[in-house]
């Protein structure tokens, strides 16, 4: 008897939905084993994670707070991934967006009408994210430089720039040496609607739907699909590859930059340690689990945010490391990747017939 993978004649729609679901369950199971090894009851742990993330409105608003940047970065990263542009620099794009929004909030406020401060801060944050993403983008399109490494290296650079600023030039003179800038003027605060949950949520959700429409119903989206799935054919068909790729990367970076601008204007109200929380990396998991679908990314982002908030919760309640949530997230991609084979292939079991059986 032997097993062979046989190519399916059609893409399995069922597998498309089922694979992420099963992947999540498998991840829960595997992390459960880890928990047992460390003498924690997985059911109790997962229970308190769930309660911590979704158990009350207050907890849920905290989940939403983390879901917002995950939605934006997840949608952005997903767009770049569609073009096989492995942008793993969402973290740096987010940080650079946050830094630029801080710059606007701290230094431009005196010169701007009150109502313009926030829009300008958010706009410049997005542009900064786009520019940060443009570095690997231009290098890739013009010189074919590997974008994975460049975008990743720029994460470190952006984080160090931010550090250099809030430890150095921009440090709050009244902060008694505490690393961080001054508090932003109120005009640069993004309104919150409940707890720390802010209106950025509605923007992120709206952008998810817009992105879906753009990908599926516009000429540009059609070209993105062509270039992403077969750049050679797209070129034969007259699509300008470099232009398509670069425009998508700029948008991808702008999403992350906006996420960073939201973080500083809505959550911290200043630039300080903790802007680089790893959202840009979790975004990769969000995008992949949502199979690069922007609307699905919205929901996956809430789930992933739940794991982060739940992880913090079990640290407080049960003394388990908060990295627990990250382990759970990291674990999801493995069954997800293994499962993606089943959307294109099916497993066939062949028993070797004896020669006599066939005439």
């Amino acid at each position, binding site marked *: 008897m032997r097993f062979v993978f046989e190519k399916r004649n059609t893409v399995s729609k069922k597998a498309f939905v089922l694979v992420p679901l099963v992947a999540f369950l498998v991840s829960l199971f595997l992390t459960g084993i880890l928990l047992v090894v460390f003498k924690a009851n997985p059911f109790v742990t997962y229970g308190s994670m769930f309660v911590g993330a979704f158990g009350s409105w207050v907890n849920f608003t905290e989940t939403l707070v983390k879901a917002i940047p995950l939605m934006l970065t997840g949608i952005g990263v997903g767009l770049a991934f569609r073009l096989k542009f492995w942008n793993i620099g969402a973290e740096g794009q987010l940080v650079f967006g946050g830094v630029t929004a801080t710059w606007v909030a701290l230094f431009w406020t005196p010169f701007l009408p009150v109502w313009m401060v926030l829009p300008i801060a958010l706009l410049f944050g997005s542009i900064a994210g786009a520019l940060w993403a443009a570095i690997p983008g231009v290098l890739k399109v013009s010189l*074919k430089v590997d974008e994975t*490494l460049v975008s990743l*290296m720029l994460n*470190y650079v952006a984080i160090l720039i931010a550090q250099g600023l809030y430890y150095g030039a921009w440090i709050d003179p009244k902060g008694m040496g505490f690393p961080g800038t001054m508090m932003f003027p109120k005009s640069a605060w993004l309104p919150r609607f409940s707890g720390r949950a802010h209106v950025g949520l509605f923007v992120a959700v709206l952008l998810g739907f817009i992105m879906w429409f753009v990908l599926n119903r516009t000429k540009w989206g059609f070209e993105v699909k062509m270039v992403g799935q077969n750049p050679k054919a797209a070129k034969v068909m007259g699509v300008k590859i470099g232009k398509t790729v670069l425009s998508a990367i700029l948008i991808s970076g702008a999403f992350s930059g906006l996420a960073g601008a939201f973080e500083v204007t809505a959550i911290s109200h200043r630039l300080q340690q903790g802007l680089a929380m790893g959202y840009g990396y979790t975004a990769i998991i969000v995008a*992949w689990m949502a199979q690069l679908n922007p609307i699905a990314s919205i929901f996956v982002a809430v789930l992933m945010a739940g794991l982060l908030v739940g992880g913090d919760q079990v640290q407080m309640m049960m003394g388990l*490391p908060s990295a627990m949530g*990250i*382990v759970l997230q990291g674990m999801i991609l*493995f069954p997800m990747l*293994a499962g993606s084979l089943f959307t294109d292939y099916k497993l066939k079991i062949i028993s070797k017939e004896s020669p006599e059986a066939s005439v």
Partner: protein
Amino acid sequence: MIALITSILAITLRAGTSLIYATIGEIYTERSGILNLGLEGMMLMGAVSAFATVYYTGSLGLALIVSMLTGIVLSSLHAFLSITMRANQVVSGLSITLFGTGLASFLGQRLGPASNGHYLIGLIGEKFTPFAIPGLSKIPVIGAVFSQDILTYIVYLIIPVAWFYMYKTKNGLNLRAVGESPQTADAMGINVYRTRYIYTIVGGTLVALGGAHLSLSYAPGWTDNITGGRGWIVIALVIFSMWNPSRAIWGALLFGGINAIQFRLQATGTTISAPFLNMLPYIVTIVVLVLMTWFETLNKKVGAPAALAVPYMRGEK
């Protein structure tokens, strides 16, 4: 002055050692056609497992073995996903990094003694110490090469052996063929899947050793993100060495050198602020990458194995 150069060279080699282990490991993996972007996660896991072992047992040998086992487990996972399941290798590697980073940080907060709040951070354990080779270590400047710890001495051996094996032996020939043209290798009776499994795992073992060198020798102890992106820098170093193990030394020396200079500047007190100094390795990586790519396109010669990151299935083109 000579003393200064000698000390910079000594630190350079010490800092470069973990890079060389990982670079040679990844060269072997990529030569078989598998791209493993999980290095950062694997090095972190190698480092944390090595340090935890040495803290509890005091045995450096055992620590190396445990970290190698960690590398074997994680690279087998990558091998399974990318070879058997034909998953996207970029995403699989990223997953290993995300998972490895998370798990290493989890273990760093959990494996420690109760007295330290279960944290490994801040503990002190056994470490590899440099020992001088009598005679040779007395040579001016070059002496720095011969006053290292055992892991660095092993690296001196690994480089030529890795080069010889790849270019002068039957197995090396088969390995290169699998990465260049798996269809050909398959038709010639080479087991493509087995070859890829073997070298992905061999590579992963060396990468984990690179991580162990960090927590047992270069910066003894455990801190979150002890690697500081070295796993990613190594991926650039593989390109820099054009997939040739004998050239791995140059990239490692370059980046080891940057580390050493940072060390010196910070020790002497400088006006350049720390964050900007710390950016140096990352910016240099980007510059090196751009120059290498530019150089390769100019020469119309790409050193990358032709089938790198392309899954193989018999009967499919």
